[in-house]
């Protein structure tokens, strides 16, 4: 039995981990990476806990280290979100830490801006340079124009940035654009944190574009739930229907795939609602709050042609949904391309109609668990999502940028970026945005950093006495300490900001990232009703367990708020979709998030580049998916190089025959098309932004149109393929 498993068996989390003290492992202190070599035993594995930073789901991880080298990342079995499991991205985190293309020390620009020429400098010089620059800006009363732009970031780095800007006197905080998934999930919340969808206990799951097995909200948490949905102990196999114009990996796992017309998901949901109301399939069925017209205008008989799904099929799905024991509707991906959120509102209305809010198998609206509010600035920070019209517009005297690469995902904004008087990047990699910087202050990787992150997980449990399902809340905090010493001469951004603050004569409420964690842990414990102060042994075991939990938390609270709590927003979907048909651009084009490479932020990890896309098996490149029937009409063969042209631009890509896509749609993944970002990412594939499909550019992406023609020339398409016979008697 491994030490970690021992921890699980002896109870849950920090409260019981004092048992582990005195186990004779002196390296297990909360400063593990700083312990000298003579205190570790060669050849012995030490597992250190942390939080995964490769997507916003923030799963708990444990990292195997030996002789101060990290050699494997696994899910943390104690963490309530991922319970020991971990996805492909999370596993690849080692290649973030040991990536050969990491920036190895602070650097200053030597060539022209954007030339990519930098020379290494010391941290003293780097911090002094930035402090002098910012001091100079402040002396000219231009500090209000300084922008801090922060995307994916550790919690402590974000809070440090908020304090830094607050003290410096600028409120221009900019973050990555909200994804459609974020917005869709937001519509289902009733304030508080993002809701949790109890897929594990649903008996009928209707997903409108939500790729919950790949990219949606928290893929590992929902994959665990999906396993139980299918084959959970003592329950019937759930039925899963997916509405999506392009069959994603998630849709490929559905029992039924309904390829509704692009942008018609809201109409589809209202058609279902109309059937449920007119047939009185649920008690007290109240129609939705429509901006115009009546629900009867959305009857399947009237809307089926636009949805492009037969009315009988819509009626059948509506009946199955309403009559299921625990139905659940979720929304994301292609269903959110309308950008105004009307589809998401209509889809979420289905949950209200069947009354599954805060019930087992339903939408679990969750209060925020924020025990570290005292460490945040008094005035809540307001992060503006970046778009062409807000964020960088009008430039400014300086841009501080961390954890986002807008020069790649929104290349149109390059001029806005370059308009800043001074650019300092905290990126650990020389990406497209960092190339434009004047000063680079490389951050640690997440495995070398300190962090603490608190949230509330949800769990539905079966009560032993009544066999009834009961929804519970599990507040938790995930604690990360450095698992290995810094690989290069980098510095955690929170620490850099604190040092620059000192030079500027500002004070921050914590002295370092480590100090933040040391101050946050007692507040978390206090909020959990535990003794605030930790003994030395408890601190040590926290480095191994990584989570703070309320014992028996599942039974602690069950906020049974009713449907009325959810905002009854007006749904503005016209009974007819405005069609944006153009003869010169006969096809819709969708760009979707690559399950492994994301929107390109993980394109520098070779394990993920060589990981076959599950549907097309393509590796190391981009492609465009086309229905074989459409391709035949255009005389395109599988693997041909084609030119995809949109009103905004053109790209040459290999075509991949994809039977699971509507004939009037083509699709291409985000992820590639980097012009820099290291040896594995640079000069590879196509960035969908060049086709006007920039991530979060505010346009109605469901209106994006394209035409495809054969380009000629040799295509560069590497597919993993298979050498098993195509027709074998495979297990079904």
């Amino acid at each position: 039995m491994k030490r970690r498993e021992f921890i699980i068996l002896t109870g849950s989390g920090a409260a019981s981990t004092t048992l582990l003290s005195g186990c004779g492992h002196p390296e297990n202190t909360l400063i593990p990476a700083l312990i000298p070599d003579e205190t570790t035993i060669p050849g012995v594995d030490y597992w250190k806990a942390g939080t995964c930073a490769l997507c916003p789901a923030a799963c708990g991880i444990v990292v195997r280290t030996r002789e101060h080298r990290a050699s494997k990342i696994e899910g943390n079995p104690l963490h309530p979100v991922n319970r020991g499991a971990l996805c492909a991205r999370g596993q690849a985190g080692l290649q973030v830490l040991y990536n050969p293309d990491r920036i190895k020390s602070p650097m200053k620009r030597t060539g022209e801006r954007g030339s990519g020429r930098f020379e290494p400098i010391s941290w003293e010089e780097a911090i002094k340079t930035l402090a002098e620059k910012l001091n100079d800006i402040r002396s000219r009363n231009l500090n209000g124009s300084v922008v801090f732009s922060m995307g994916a970031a550790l919690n402590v780095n974000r809070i440090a940035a908020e304090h830094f800007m607050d003290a410096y006197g600028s409120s221009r905080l900019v973050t990555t654009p909200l994804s459609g998934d974020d917005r869709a999930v937001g519509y289902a919340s009733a304030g508080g944190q993002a809701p949790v969808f109890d897929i594990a206990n649903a008996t009928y799951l209707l997903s409108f574009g939500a790729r919950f097995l790949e990219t949606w909200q928290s893929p590992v948490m929902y994959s665990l739930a999906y396993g139980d949905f299918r084959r959970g102990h003592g329950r019937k196999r759930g039925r899963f229907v997916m509405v999506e114009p392009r069959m994603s990996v998630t849709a490929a796992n559905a029992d039924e795939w309904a390829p509704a017309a692009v942008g018609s998901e809201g109409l589809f949901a209202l058609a279902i609602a109309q059937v449920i109301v007119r047939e009185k399939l649920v008690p007290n069925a109240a129609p939705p709050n429509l901006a115009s017209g009546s629900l009867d205008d959305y009857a399947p008989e009237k809307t089926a042609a636009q949805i492009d799904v037969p009315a009988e099929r819509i009626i059948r799905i509506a009946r199955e949904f309403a009559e299921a024991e625990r139905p659940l509707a979720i929304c994301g991906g292609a269903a959110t391309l309308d950008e105004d959120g009307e589809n998401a509102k209509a889809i979420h209305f289905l949950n209200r109609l069947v009354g599954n809010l805060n019930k087992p198998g339903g939408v679990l609206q969750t209060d925020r668990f924020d025990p570290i509010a005292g460490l945040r600035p008094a005035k809540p920070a307001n992060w503006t999502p970046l778009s062409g019209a807000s964020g960088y517009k009008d430039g400014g005297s300086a841009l501080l940028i961390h954890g986002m690469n807008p020069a790649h995902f929104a290349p149109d904004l390059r001029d806005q970026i370059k308009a800043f008087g001074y650019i300092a990047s905290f990126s650990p990699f020389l990406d497209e945005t960092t190339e434009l910087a004047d000063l680079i202050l490389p951050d640690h990787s997440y495995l070398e950093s300190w962090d603490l992150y608190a949230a509330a997980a949800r769990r539905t449990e079966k009560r032993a006495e009544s066999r009834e399902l009961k929804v519970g809340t599990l507040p938790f905090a995930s604690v990360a300490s450095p698992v290995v010493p810094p690989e290069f001469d980098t510095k955690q951004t929170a620490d850099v900001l604190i040092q620059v603050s000192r030079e500027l004569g500002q004070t921050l409420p914590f002295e370092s990232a480590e100090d933040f964690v040391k101050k946050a842990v007692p507040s978390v414990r206090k909020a959990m009703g535990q003794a605030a102060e930790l003994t030395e042994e408890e601190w040590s075991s926290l480095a191994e367990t990584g989570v703070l939990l309320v014992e028996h938390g599942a039974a602690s609270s069950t906020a049974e708020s009713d449907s009325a709590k959810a905002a009854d927003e007006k749904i503005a979907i016209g009974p007819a979709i405005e069609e944006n048909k153009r003869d010169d651009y006969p096809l819709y084009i969708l760009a979707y998030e690559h399950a492994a490479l994301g929107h390109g932020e993980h394109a520098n990890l070779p394990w993920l580049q060589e990981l076959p896309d599950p549907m097309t098996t393509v590796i190391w490149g981009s492609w465009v998916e086309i229905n074989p029937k459409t391709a035949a009409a255009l005389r395109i063969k599988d693997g041909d190089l084609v030119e995809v042209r949109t009103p905004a631009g053109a790209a040459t890509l290999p075509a991949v025959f994809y039977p699971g896509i509507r004939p009037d749609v083509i699709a291409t993944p985000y992820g590639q098309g980097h012009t820099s970002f290291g040896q594995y990412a640079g000069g590879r594939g196509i960035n969908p932004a060049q086709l006007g499909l920039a991530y979060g550019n505010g346009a109605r992406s469901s209106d994006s149109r394209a035409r495809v023609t054969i380009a000629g020339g040799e295509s560069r398409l590497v597919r993993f393929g298979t050498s098993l016979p195509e027709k074998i008697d495979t297990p079904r």
Partner: protein
Amino acid sequence: MQETPEAKKPQWAMVIDLDRCTGCEACVVACHAENNVRIAGEEEAARGRSVNWIRVERYLEGEYPDVKVRFMPVMCQHCEEAPCEPVCPVYATYHSDEGLNAQVYNRCVGTRYCANNCPYTVRFFNFFPAQWPEPLWKALNPEVSVRSRGVMEKCTFCIQRIRKGEEKAKDEGRDVRDGDVNPACVQSCPTRAMSFGNIADPASEVSRLSKSGRASRLMEELGTKPKVIYLNRGE
């Protein structure tokens, strides 16, 4: 070792529930990380020389809009009657008394007969030396040898984890039991589709699941007697 009667040796087997498997490929990266599986790079991968001890097969059936997709993770099936074993001229591949199809890297002379004879195409040849640009090599697992050019490699059921689990059980003076050994793929699986254990132990999870009405083996008509059991999706 000699004292233990062979019958008491664990017989390792894996069960994969295809109704839980979503094709997410977490197992693939977990395996790469655990077993020091090299990256081929685009050029070599285009020549079919990438290595995946475990891969996810994707089967597409039907035409739009009635398309069905099935995912199936495939790794070395550790056949009891393994076609790869008798053809090796140097006994680099052999069957262990724990039911593992083992590969001795430093015995392998690279004839590739075994890969030719494997119906599951799960054996991979090192056509070129592995590259680990500084400092990527630091992520290597010190418990697994890095294979050199000219040798064959394949899934070992994470033999290093099996040994650790067995030693632990021995230290505690007991037989191995469920949970002692989890290969990297099984450990990572986000849907808990995979189980691993001793099929000779009637109380183990793999024993129980292998008796399921949904159980079958891949291409079992070949008579290879695979040690990987798939549970059909069912409806």
